[in-house]
C-alpha cells in the first residue's frame, strides 16, 4: 500500500459517519453479498459452492445432512436408514413434507431426484463429484421408504446421500432447469441474472419456521466492496472477504474453512523422486514465519490434506519443524549419491488461489534457495493451472512443485485421499502399493476400521512417502452485520442456511 493510499484511507476514516440512506430498514429481510453470481440454480449443482450458498438447505434439502465439524450423518429428509446387504440400503423418508409446487415428497419423488442427478446427459456436479463410476438403482418400498442398490459396495452411502437433494417430479429430466423446486423453508421468488436472486419464506415448511422472511443475494467480485457494503448497512452477510478487509473484530468472523493448502511435489521426476530431497523441502519450510504475516495468524500448520473433524484425519502426525541445517544435510547426502539436486525446479503457483497467494510462493522460493535449491517461480491463471493439476502430466515436464488448495467438508477422507494419493487418482504424483492398499481397504470398510485405515494411509504418506509440503489448514473471514445473530462456520463455504440466522434486538 502506497503512502498516498494510506493517507487517503486515514482521511476517509476520519470523516464523520452519516447514517446511510441506502441501508435497508430494520426488518427480518436480509441481503447477502457473494463473490460471484451462480451461473445455474439447478438442484443437481447444489454441491458447487456458489450454487449451494443460495439454494442448499434453503430451497432444496438433502436426504441426510452431514455435520461438518464432526463428520456425523444426521437425518434431514430421510429419518432413518439401514444396510440390508453389501450392495443394498434402505432409507425411511420423512412424512408430511411437500414441494413448493404442492406435490408431495415421497419415495417416487426421491427416485426421480436420484435418477435425474445420476443422468449422464446433464453434467450434474453432484454425480460427477461424489458418484463417479457408481450406479444406483432406486426402488420405492411403499410411499415413504426406498431401497437403493449400488453397483459396488458403498459403506458410506448415507454420507453420500448428504449431497443428494430432493426436487419436485416437475423438474425435467435430461436438461438443466432454471427453476429449482424443493422442500426447503424458502422458495425461489425472483432470479434476474446478473443482478439478484430473491428467496422468500414459505408458510408450510415441515420444520421450525425460520426468523428470516426474505433473502436477497447480490454479488460483487471485490472483497473491499463486499466488506464496505456490510459496513455501510447495505448488506448483512459478506462471505469470504480477504484478510486485509477483515479489520473490524465486531463484524468479522474467522473460521477454519475446510480448505488445506500444500505444495504437491512431483515425485516422479529427478531430483524430486528422491525422498531425501522431498524431506529437505519440508525441513526448509518456515511455516511459523509465514503465519501471522503472509497468512492469517489463525491458520493451523497442517500435516495432511484433510482438516481435523473429517473421518480419517490422523491427529498424531506432527508438522516437520523448520530446520534448514537438516535440509542442507539431506541435500548434501543426496548429492553425494548422484542425485541432481542443482536441477532447476519450477514452483507453479496460481494467482489469487488464496489471499497473498503469490507472496507466499515468493517466500517459499526464498526459503528453498537459501538451503541450496534452484527454484523458478511461475504464476498461472486458473485455466492453465487446471491443465497442470490433472493427469495426464506432460512427459517432458520439468520437476515441479505445484501450489494447491483443497476443500473437504463432506465428513470423510474418501473425497480427498483417492484423488490426491492413490496411484489411479487423477492428481497423484507417486505410486505406492501399500498406500493404494490402505486407501482401497479403507474405502470398503466402515466405522472405526475405516477411520484407522485412512489414518494409517495418512501416516505413511506424511512420514514415508512425503509427496507434498503440507502448509496450513486455512481460515476464511465472513463479515456479518451486528444486527444478525449468526456465527459463520466451516460449512459457510458451501452452504449458508438462512434458518440458522437470528436477529439481535436493538
Amino acid at each position: 500500500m502506497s503512502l498516498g493510499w494510506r493517507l487517503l484511507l486515514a482521511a476517509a476514516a476520519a470523516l464523520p459517519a452519516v447514517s446511510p440512506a441506502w441501508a435497508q430498514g430494520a426488518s427480518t429481510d436480509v441481503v447477502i453479498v457473494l463473490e460471484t453470481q451462480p451461473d445455474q440454480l439447478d438442484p443437481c449443482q447444489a454441491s458447487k459452492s456458489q450454487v449451494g450458498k443460495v439454494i442448499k438447505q434453503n430451497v432444496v434439502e438433502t436426504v441426510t445432512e452431514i455435520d461438518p465439524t464432526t463428520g456425523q450423518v444426521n437425518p434431514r429428509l430421510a429419518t432413518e436408514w439401514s444396510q440390508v446387504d453389501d450392495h443394498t440400503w434402505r432409507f425411511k423418508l420423512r412424512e408430511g413434507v411437500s414441494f413448493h409446487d404442492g406435490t408431495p415428497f415421497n419415495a417416487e419423488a426421491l427416485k426421480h431426484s436420484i435418477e435425474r442427478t445420476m443422468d449422464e446427459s446433464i453434467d450434474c456436479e453432484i454425480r460427477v463429484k461424489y458418484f463417479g463410476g457408481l450406479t444406483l438403482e432406486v426402488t420405492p418400498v411403499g410411499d415413504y421408504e426406498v431401497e437403493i442398490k449400488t453397483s459396488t459396495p458403498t459403506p458410506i452411502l448415507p454420507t453420500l446421500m448428504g449431497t443428494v437433494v430432493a426436487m419436485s417430479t416437475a423438474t425435467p429430466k435430461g436438461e438443466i432447469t432454471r427453476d429449482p423446486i424443493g422442500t426447503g423453508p424458502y422458495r425461489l421468488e425472483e432470479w434476474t441474472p446478473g443482478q439478484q436472486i430473491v428467496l422468500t419464506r414459505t408458510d408450510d415448511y415441515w420444520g421450525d419456521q425460520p426468523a428470516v422472511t426474505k433473502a436477497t443475494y447480490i454479488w460483487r467480485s471485490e472483497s473491499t466492496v463486499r466488506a464496505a457494503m456490510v459496513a455501510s448497512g447495505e448488506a448483512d452477510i459478506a462471505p469470504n472477504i480477504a484478510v486485509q478487509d477483515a479489520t473490524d473484530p465486531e463484524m468479522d468472523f474467522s473460521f477454519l474453512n475446510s480448505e488445506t493448502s500444500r505444495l504437491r511435489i512431483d515425485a516422479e521426476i529427478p531430483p524430486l523422486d528422491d525422498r531425501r530431497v522431498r524431506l529437505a523441502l519440508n525441513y526448509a519450510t518456515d511455516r511459523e514465519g509465514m503465519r501471522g504475516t503472509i497468512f492469517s495468524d489463525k491458520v493451523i500448520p497442517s500435516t495432511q490434506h484433510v482438516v481435523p473433524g473429517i473421518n480419517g484425519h490422523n491427529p498424531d502426525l506432527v508438522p516437520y519443524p523448520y530446520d534448514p541445517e537438516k535440509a542442507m544435510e539431506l541435500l548434501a547426502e543426496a548429492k553425494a549419491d548422484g542425485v541432481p539436486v542443482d536441477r532447476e525446479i519450477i514452483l507453479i503457483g496460481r494467482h489469487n488461489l488464496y489471499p497473498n497467494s503469490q507472496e507466499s510462493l515468493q517466500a517459499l522460493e526464498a526459503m528453498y534457495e537459501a538451503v541450496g535449491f534452484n527454484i523458478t517461480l511461475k504464476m498461472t491463471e486458473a485455466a492453465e493451472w487446471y491443465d497442470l493439476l490433472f493427469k495426464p502430466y506432460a512427459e517432458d515436464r520439468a520437476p515441479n512443485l505445484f501450489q494447491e488448495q483443497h476443500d473437504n467438508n463432506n465428513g470423510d477422507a474418501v473425497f480427498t485421499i483417492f484423488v490426491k494419493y492413490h496411484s489411479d487418482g487423477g492428481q497423484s504424483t507417486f505410486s505406492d502399493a501399500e498406500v493404494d492398499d490402505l486407501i482401497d481397504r479403507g474405502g470398503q470398510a466402515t466405522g472405526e476400521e475405516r477411520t484407522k485405515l485412512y489414518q494409517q494411509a495418512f501416516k505413511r504418506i506424511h512420514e514415508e512417502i512425503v509427496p507434498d509440503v503440507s502448509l496450513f489448514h486455512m481460515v476464511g473471514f465472513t463479515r456479518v452485520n451486528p444486527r444478525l445473530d449468526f456465527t459463520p462456520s466451516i460449512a459457510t463455504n458451501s452452504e449458508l442456511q438462512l434458518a440458522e440466522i437470528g436477529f439481535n434486538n436493538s
Partner: protein
Amino acid sequence: MNRFVLRHGTQSLFALLCLLVLVFFLARLTGDPTDLYLPMDASLEQRAAFAESHGFNDPLVVQFGRYLAGLARFDFGDSLFQGRPAIDAVLAAFPVTLKLAGITLALALSLAILIGSLAAWRPRSVFDRIASMLTIASASAPDFWVAIVAILVFAVSLGWLPTSGMGTAAHWIMPVGVLMVRPLGLLTQIVRAAMIGALASPYVKTARAKGAGKSRIIFVHGLRNAMLTVVTVAGDQAATLINGAVVVETVFGWPGIGNLMIQAIQQRDFAVLQACILVTALAIFVMNLLIDIAYSRLDPRIRNA
C-alpha cells in the same frame, strides 16, 4: 459523402469478419473448458466424456463450421455455464454498458469542451494552468484505484452514496464519475490544444477585429473548426470506454457486457465470448459509421475525397 462512408463501411465490415475468425481460433488455442467446468475431483473418464459430448474433441475446422452454420440461422450457441442461449446473456448485458458509456461520454465531452475552450482562450492563464494540471492528473489516474477510494470515502465514511449496484439515480453517480475521469482529462487536453490552434488562425483574428463577443468567437468560429480532431478522439475514447467499463462494472457489480466478457474469458465460455465480441464489434462498427458521417458534415472537403 456517400462514397467516403461506403468505402469506410466496407472496410470495417471486412475487419469484423477477420475479428470473428481470429477470436474463434485464438480462444480455443488455450484449451477447452472441461477442467474449469467439472469439479476438481472428476475422473479422467468423466473429463473425456464431457469433452466428447460437448464437441471439444472435434477438429477446430469442424467446430468453426458448426459455429458459422449456427450464425447463418442467428443461432449464437448456448452458454456452457449458464445453460441458456449466449445471445440472451449478451443482449441483457449490452444495454447496461451502452447507457453507462453513453452518459459518461456525453458528460465528458460537454465538460471537456467547456473547460478546454476556456483554458484555450488565454493559454498560460491561472485557469489554464489549474485546468491542465487537474486534467493531466485525471487522465493518468487508474480507474480501479479511483473506484475503491470513492467507495470508501463516499459510501462507507460519508454515507452519501450507495457502495455499488444499480437501481436509483444515486447508484449512477460513482460509476459514471469514475468512468469519466480518464476520458475527461484526455478530451480536455485535446479540446484545449485544438482550440489554441483554431483561435490563432486568421479567420478568428478577423472575427476579433470585427468585435465579435468571446462566446461567439469560441463556440461559433473556433469550436466548429476544432471539432474535427475532437470527434476523432472522442470516437476512440468511446471504444476505450468499453475497456474502462470492464473495471467499473466489476467493482460496482454492474451486470454489463464488460463484466460478462471477463467472466466468459475466465470460464472459457466460448459461445458467450464470441457473442460478446460480435455485438461489441457491431456497435463500434455502427459508431465509426456515425463518426464518418459526422466528419463529412463538419468538413465539406471530406465528402468528395
